[in-house]
């Protein structure tokens, strides 16, 4: 029998990433580039909402988009049609983006020429919640067909976001989605979250969302001046 020694490590698995995320936020401050991390389940409407958001804000901000699909560039092509800068990140099959990958993505985007960078994270409600990307604000989309019980099933995600968009409200009547009950569940987990009901299809609520984003970016920039 061989002799083994014990090597104590005592290291929080997320520490490394959290540190890199803080460094990235510092860097973004200096470069005056606001980074929004957008998360959701697959198909809840991230790309459609982004397209609308770009249309609403592209005259005010120089926007750059990072698409983090696991292995396709369909979304990047859709976004490219809006005329803003977009890059495809390769997550190598990973189910989330960490701060290091986000930083590389931003380098690819070239932050000097970007005021507002938006990251479309991998479609998934678990992993992205646990890895801080270094974003200034975190947004999440929950769509009506997914059900109003999602806050109960994925509490971490709902508790870390700054803003929640409840999308596809144009189809509310076909689903037993209780909007008020859902909002209440989310507020219980996260009293400070901003909740906006939208339809990326009809455009309902998108003005309020664009206003929130515009104000948040401006306030952040002024704070750093």
């Amino acid at each position, binding site marked *: 029998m*061989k*002799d*083994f*020694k*014990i*090597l*104590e*490590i*005592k*290291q*929080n*698995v*997320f520490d*490394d*990433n959290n540190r890199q995320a803080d460094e990235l936020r510092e860097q973004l401050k200096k470069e005056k580039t606001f980074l929004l991390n957008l998360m959701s389940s697959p198909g809840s409407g991230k790309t459609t909402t982004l397209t609308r958001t770009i249309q609403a804000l592209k005259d005010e901000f120089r926007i750059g988009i990072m698409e983090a699909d696991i292995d396709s560039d369909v979304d990047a092509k859709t976004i490219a049609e809006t005329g803003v800068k977009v890059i495809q990140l390769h997550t190598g099959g*990973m*189910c*989330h983006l*960490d701060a290091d990958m986000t930083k590389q993505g931003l380098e690819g985007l070239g932050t000097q020429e970007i005021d507002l960078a938006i990251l479309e994270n991998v479609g*998934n409600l*678990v*992993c992205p*919640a*646990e890895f801080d990307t270094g974003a200034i604000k975190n947004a999440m989309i929950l769509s009506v067909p997914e059900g109003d019980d999602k806050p109960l099933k994925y509490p*971490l995600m709902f508790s870390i976001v700054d803003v929640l968009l409840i999308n596809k409200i144009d189809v509310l009547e076909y689903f037993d989605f209780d909007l008020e009950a859902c909002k209440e569940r989310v507020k219980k987990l996260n009293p400070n979250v901003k909740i906006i009901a939208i339809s990326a299809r009809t455009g309902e609520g998108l003005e309020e969302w664009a206003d929130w984003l515009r104000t948040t970016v401006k306030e952040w920039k002024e704070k750093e001046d």
Partner: protein
Amino acid sequence: MHELSVLFEIVKQVELVAKKNEVEHIETLILQIGELSSMIPHYMKKLYPAAIEGTILADSRLEIEVIPANGLCKDCRQVFNLIKEKGTCPTCQSKSFELLSGKEFMIKEILCS
């Protein structure tokens, strides 16, 4: 596949420590996972062999210590398990508590040579 990407992250961190300490062979990796963490020990164990293939951890064993989700009752100071008691103090029925443990996700130590 949440657990798999997290395992890759762990392997990366252990490799760094091993290199720094001139470790040649790792027999066992010991993790501490809180009951409230989203990591499921059962899946971690299942995916472990795939995550360590071709790394310094190849052929090592994974051991997981589960840390209980304990709360301290703010009203009567009783310590109780939050999951078992569903967040309510078994002594005074209060729902207000301070979280003492259960959110950990730590690389505790390795047995190595």
